[in-house]
């Protein structure tokens, strides 16, 4: 007689084995997804962390009046635009010995950023008393020097493949030995607009552009979204029109974001002639894009408000609008705000539609209002990612870190609101 019990138990072992394996497949899938997330974050942080520092070179500058302001005009404009190159060169050759011929002079001058002389100009213009005196000043180093100081240039590879030559490195070592070169917190990154030179480029302009776009987006999408949700949930009768609006909202939620950009381009720019490349148009486009998200979230919140609240208000003689706006909407507000913040967080990261309406231009100035030309943080990331200069790689990563920090803050804000203010019925 065959041993059935043994047979079945072998079969059971097989079946349980299969279950174990199946569970592991699930765990591995989750592990891979999260591992990718961690890999991506660490790759970006690893590349971007160094961008929060910048290299500066200390020079004892002799602000000779004869060179800077020979006419003694003391006009801030003249002081700003004066030729500071000779002063800087003089001070550099004091520190670094053996610089005599023209080629060397030009090379050593390139250790400094092209923006260093503008910096000097600003300083003198704001404080003309400096003229004729000598002062030690920290000046911005060039991107190549900056990368070298951060250990991102390998001095062992052939000199022909580097933009920073052996001579430059020798000079940097001289500066280093005298403590005249150091890394400080990168204020340029957070305080300046875009620039063609990596060491002079900052994200402030883009961040403010993003802020203005989101402001416009919020002012349009929040009231419209909530009113639509209230109408559809509280007032609309079930008819063809209501169904049509609902279908529209669901479809809009699925339209690729780039199509909204085309809408902005052909309707708002070409038809209504709104100013191109501005946060105004960007905000409108983002608002139309986030509107479905806000409506759908707000509706589900409204649906969760118990009917008894409405019945009580109506029973005490409140009208339909009074019931809705005095009782239902205030109760639903935290939830609706949460939905709106999440929608805005998505809008903050959106790039493609902004490319279509020209917010992709190279803009140095920091926007002062919604009708100034501007770009936005994600678009700035896209622009820098496209730049060939090596110095932009770390800045792109740093800009991504800043963007992600903003996104995380917005999401935490939403979570906090939900936890603190939302009521469970």
């Amino acid at each position, binding site marked *: 007689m065959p041993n059935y019990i043994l047979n079945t138990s072998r079969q059971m072992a097989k079946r349980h084995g299969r279950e174990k394996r199946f569970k592991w497949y699930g765990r591995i899938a989750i592990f891979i997804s999260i591992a990718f997330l961690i890999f991506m974050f660490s790759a970006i942080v690893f590349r971007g962390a160094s961008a929060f520092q910048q290299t500066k070179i200390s020079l004892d500058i002799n602000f000779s009046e004869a060179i800077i302001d020979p006419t003694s005009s003391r006009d801030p404009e003249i002081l700003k635009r004066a030729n500071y190159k000779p002063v800087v060169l003089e001070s550099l050759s004091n520190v670094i010995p053996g610089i005599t011929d023209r080629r060397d002079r030009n090379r050593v001058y390139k250790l400094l950023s092209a923006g260093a002389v503008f910096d000097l100009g600003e300083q003198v213009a704001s404080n003309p008393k400096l003229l004729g005196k000598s002062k030690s000043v920290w000046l911005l180093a060039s991107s190549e020097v900056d990368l070298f100081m951060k250990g991102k240039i390998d001095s062992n590879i052939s000199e022909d493949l580097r933009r920073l030559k052996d001579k430059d490195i020798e000079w940097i070592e001289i500066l280093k030995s005298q403590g005249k070169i150091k890394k400080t917190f990168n204020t340029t990154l957070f305080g300046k607009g875009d620039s063609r030179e990596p060491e002079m480029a900052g994200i402030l302009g883009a961040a403010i552009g993003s802020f203005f776009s989101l402001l416009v987006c919020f002012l349009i999408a929040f009231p419209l979204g909530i009113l639509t949700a209230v109408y559809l949930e509280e007032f609309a009768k079930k008819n063809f029109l209501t169904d049509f*609006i609902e279908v529209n909202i669901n479809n809009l939620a699925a339209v690729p974001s780039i199509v909204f950009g085309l809408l902005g381009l052909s309707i708002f720019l070409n038809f209504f002639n709104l100013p191109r490349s501005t946060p105004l148009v960007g905000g409108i486009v983002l608002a139309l894009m986030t509107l479905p998200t806000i409506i759908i979230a707000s509706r589900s919140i409204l649906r969760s408000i118990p009917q008894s609240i409405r019945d009580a208000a109506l029973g005490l003689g409140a009208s339909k609008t009074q019931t809705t706006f005095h009782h239902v909407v205030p109760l639903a507000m935290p939830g609706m705000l949460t939905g709106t913040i999440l929608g805005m967080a998505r809008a903050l990261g959106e790039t493609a539609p902004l490319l*279509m309406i020209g917010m992709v231009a190279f803009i140095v100035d920091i926007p002062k209002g919604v009708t100034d030309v501007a770009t936005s943080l994600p678009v700035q990331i896209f622009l820098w*990612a496209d730049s060939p200069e090596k110095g932009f790689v770390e800045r792109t990563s740093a800009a991504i870190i800043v963007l992600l920090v903003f996104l995380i803050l917005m999401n935490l804000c939403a979570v906090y609101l939900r936890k603190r203010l939302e009521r469970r019925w």
Partner: protein
Amino acid sequence: MSLPTENWLRRKNRRNQIKELVIQGVLIASSFVAILTTIGIVASLVFEAFRFFDKIPLMEFLFSLEWSPQTAIRADQVGASGKFGVIPLLTGTLLISFIAMLVATPLGLLSAIYLAEFAKAKTRDAVKPLLELLAGIPTVVYGFFAALVVAPIIRATGSGVGFDISSESALAAGLVMGVMLIPFISSLSDDVINAVPQALRDASFGMGATHEETVTKVVVPAATPGIIGSLLLAISRAIGETMIVVMAAGLAANLTLNPFEAVTTMTVQIVTLLTGDQEFDSAKTLAAFAIALFLLVLTLGLNIIALHIVNKYKKKYA
């Protein structure tokens, strides 16, 4: 004769009625914005696309195998009109979407099944937000990562085994896009699996099936329509995705199914056609609107089918 208070009440009542009507009017007006947006999108795309089809016949756009939209500087130049066949763009888009789905489908589905059926509540609470984080990352970040990290790795691996892989290969863009799609598939499938009635599971357990057998032979088959719906939604997102492909895929419209070659997509072409400085009437710029119309029809079609399937499925177990 009416009392003064009665008059006052009547007037107040009418004022209130008018106020109610005005408020309701505002509500209706704001809900019409959604309709206006749809009309705006369709009208602008259709209008510009028609102007494009004036210059390039529809049949050529749909069936021509070549895409090279450069316009001539001189009228008598060779190939002055440019070639506007959407097929290479479509194959490029589908190739990248296919690679993305190859990554996202197993990872997304297995995670969803594990989280919905096997994981403890604690694990679920910890893992779900992490997966959703993947959906919250801006696509420009994925694009940067694909172009800067993933593409060089793939290229280096390729040359390590003596295989020449383009630095703008469909593979890099597809892989990273696949990761972006994981949360879309996992969270939708999770909902769908949770919607399968407990009675089905209990019956299966009662017959002596193991948990794995219950999941693969009862729960998943019952949830299949919903899962298919979630996959279709993910595909529609992959087709409309812009930034990852703009940054990591190429510009050359190669008609190929080789994932190691550079391909271009519809969204990439829209961006390249419209971000330069050019006059608004050329066939080149108008072509972007024709592609966008095509893209819209494709994604909306997929979406409507997907929602239909999901809704039908939801009704079945409601």
